[in-house]
């Protein structure tokens, strides 16, 4: 996502000596057909993306279903799929929090409370809303932050995807980067947001078609859910005070030390469930742009609700394979395969002789793992078949285990589709923010509509080119990846504070919005740098010496939000607010929402939001 960015990119860099799988002709045909179709959609829609409204907002004519599926798909990248499967292998079912409490309440809040203001204000972007509410300076800060974050994230994702293709299939990294990025540049550059959205819907279907078999077959082999639980308890005995901590969402979160993730429920509820989740799902333009393309307010409100049903189901194809990997993956000799951290894989990278290039470093790294002593010795000797795989390879390993010719091609297509939908989301959002929130107000104010469409198309090409540059930069300087990934979490919490106050408090003033956003970003970034320079500071940020790295994001976000809230409140109270008449369409209490045509109950967004909430609560109770 992700709302929290759990997919640890360095894990994906753990290159193995030999690819996990080799594709046959049938698999290659499946992948080739996918590329042909996405490009064809781009060419087909080119003639229907001529005006700014068509190119940047898909003509504002998407149905609730298309906008809703695109809304979820733009978030369901390949890093998301593999990173969270790896997290589930490491932390158990706790990883599901990022899909349920870390998404569902925020999606419903966007639908029911915030969408009317985004939609009625007729803004083309989230920075555009900030311009209307707080003025140009706040918009500029947000626009540059968004544009930088999106383009760098796109590059990091691109590199991560290329590494995955290298690890799984042995493909050349440059080949993967060029083929996938040129395809995205073509279909988004030609067809604009409409093409991105339609491809995201197609990609969403393919992701399910390619990934659904893994948990289904895994469950059959494990003996169903009860069999999986029994095997997990047997494999993980002695790991925590309660060996079944891997199977509970909330029960062991009363203490940082009692659960595998090292988090506390307060961090999950307030940091993840409120700040990170609401920040991502209600203010990140990458996802909000999809809903802004809906054809009317009712469709715009229904889209996140439709998306939330699918979001709740995603753990079935992401978390469950990770859990199944814990009990089903095997080494060549039939013993249980244990995945390890990327640092261990890197430390044991083999030389030309097949033995670890640095035996001492490898031995030290292996001692920190739970790998059996005999297996550690095999790794050190470079014995055939004694290879190491990182957590994030859990999903590809499970795919290779169950998917034969054709199906494996479909599974790989699912990963590629996930990557491309995420990248297309980033570049289409970047193009809109660049054109409308940076180029038009700051560089060329009086262009024609067709001029801005041309700028939009060119900015997509430029954005993809910069992304490729970022990908190669990351390839040669791995350390910067953490900083790039942190951009999202550094920026999103202050943005949420400023937007929530702007949308729901008439008294919030333009200067408060500007200072709140700017100082909030600086504060959040400072916390990140503090922990980077001094890892012991994590205990201060997360308020516990037992806190583990996963706790940092959620607590940093919570502090940054609180800081921003205090700044906005304090500055607003000592500066002059805008007249209420100017806030029509922007702020709760100053806006008359357009009357909607009566709809039967089964089309009512409040009714469906209620259904979602009931399922959400039930799932949390069942997996308590």
């Amino acid at each position: 996502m992700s709302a929290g960015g759990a997919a640890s990119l360095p894990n994906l860099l753990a290159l193995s000596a030999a690819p996990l799988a080799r594709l046959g002709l049938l698999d290659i045909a499946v992948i080739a057909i996918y590329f042909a179709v996405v490009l064809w959609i781009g060419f087909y829609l080119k003639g229907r993306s001529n005006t700014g409204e068509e190119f940047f907002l898909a003509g504002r004519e998407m149905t609730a279903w298309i906008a809703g599926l695109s809304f979820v798909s733009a978030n369901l990248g390949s890093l998301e799929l593999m990173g969270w499967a790896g997290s589930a292998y490491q932390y158990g079912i706790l990883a599901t929090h990022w899909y349920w409490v870390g998404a569902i309440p925020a999606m419903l809040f966007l639908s029911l409370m915030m969408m009317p203001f985004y939609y009625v204000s007729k803004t083309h972007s989230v920075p555009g809303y900030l311009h209307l509410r707080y003025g140009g300076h706040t918009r500029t800060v947000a626009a540059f932050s968004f544009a930088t974050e999106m383009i760098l994230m796109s590059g990091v994702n691109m590199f991560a995807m290329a590494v995955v293709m290298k690890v799984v299939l042995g493909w050349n990294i440059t080949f993967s980067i060029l083929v996938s990025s040129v395809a995205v540049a073509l279909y988004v550059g030609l067809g604009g947001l409409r093409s991105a959205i339609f491809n995201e819907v197609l990609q969403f279907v393919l992701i399910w078609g390619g990934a659904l078999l893994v948990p289904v077959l895994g469950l059959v082999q494990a003996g169903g859910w009860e069999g999986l639980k029994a095997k997990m308890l047997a494999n993980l005995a002695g790991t925590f005070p309660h060996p079944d901590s891997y199977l509970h969402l909330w029960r062991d979160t009363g203490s940082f030390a009692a659960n595998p993730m090292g988090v506390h429920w307060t961090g999950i509820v307030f940091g993840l469930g409120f700040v990170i989740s609401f920040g991502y799902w209600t203010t990140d333009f990458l996802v909000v742009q999809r809903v802004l393309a809906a054809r009317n307010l009712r469709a715009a409100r229904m889209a996140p609700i439709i998306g939330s049903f699918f979001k709740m189901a995603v753990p079935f194809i992401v978390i469950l394979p990770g859990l199944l990997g814990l009990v089903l993956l095997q080494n060549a000799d039939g013993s249980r395969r244990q995945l390890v951290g990327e640092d261990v894989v890197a430390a044991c990278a083999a030389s030309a002789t097949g033995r670890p290039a640095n035996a001492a470093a490898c031995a030290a790294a292996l001692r920190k793992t739970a790998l059996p002593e005999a297996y550690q010795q095999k790794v050190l000797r470079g014995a055939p078949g004694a290879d190491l795989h990182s957590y994030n390879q859990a999903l590809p390993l499970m795919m290779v285990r169950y998917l034969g010719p054709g199906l494996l091609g479909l599974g790989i297509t699912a990963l590629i589709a996930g990557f491309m939908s995420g990248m297309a989301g980033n570049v289409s959002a970047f193009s809109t923010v660049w054109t409308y929130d940076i180029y038009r107000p700051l560089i060329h104010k009086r262009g024609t509509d067709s001029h801005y469409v041309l700028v939009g198309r060119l900015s997509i090409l430029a954005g993809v080119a910069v992304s490729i540059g970022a990908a190669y930069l990351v390839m040669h300087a791995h350390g910067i990846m953490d900083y790039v990934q942190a951009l999202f979490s550094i920026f999103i919490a202050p943005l949420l504070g400023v937007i929530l106050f702007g949308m729901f408090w008439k008294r919030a003033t333009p200067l408060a919005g500007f200072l709140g956003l700017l100082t909030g970003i600086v504060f959040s970034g400072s916390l990140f740098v503090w922990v980077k320079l001094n890892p012991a500071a994590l205990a201060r940020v997360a308020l516990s010496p037992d806190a583990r790295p996963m706790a940092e994001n959620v607590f940093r976000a919570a502090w940054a939000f609180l800081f921003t809230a205090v700044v906005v409140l304090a500055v607003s109270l000592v500066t002059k607010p805008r007249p209420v008449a100017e806030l029509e369409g922007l702020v709760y209490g100053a806006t008359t929402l357009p009357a909607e045509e009566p709809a039967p109950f089964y089309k009512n967004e409040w009714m469906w939001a209620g259904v979602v909430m009931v399922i959400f609560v039930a799932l949390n109770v069942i997996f308590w």
Partner: protein
Amino acid sequence: MQGSGIPIWFFIGLVLTIYGAMILGYGTYEWISGNYPATVQMTYLHTPVWWGGLLAALGAFYVIKFRPGREK
């Protein structure tokens, strides 16, 4: 797919039908010949046959329901 001619659901149906037919065809060959990939588990379930068939059936449904020119 308003304003764009052919519905996106038609495209999706077409892709699923093609993929389903390819995978079903291979699965049938695999079943008849008994030539299963050595590294793949649970081949006795003949997954390509039923999964390919399912994809093809779902795809065909969408192709027919959302075919271009069909009156709403």
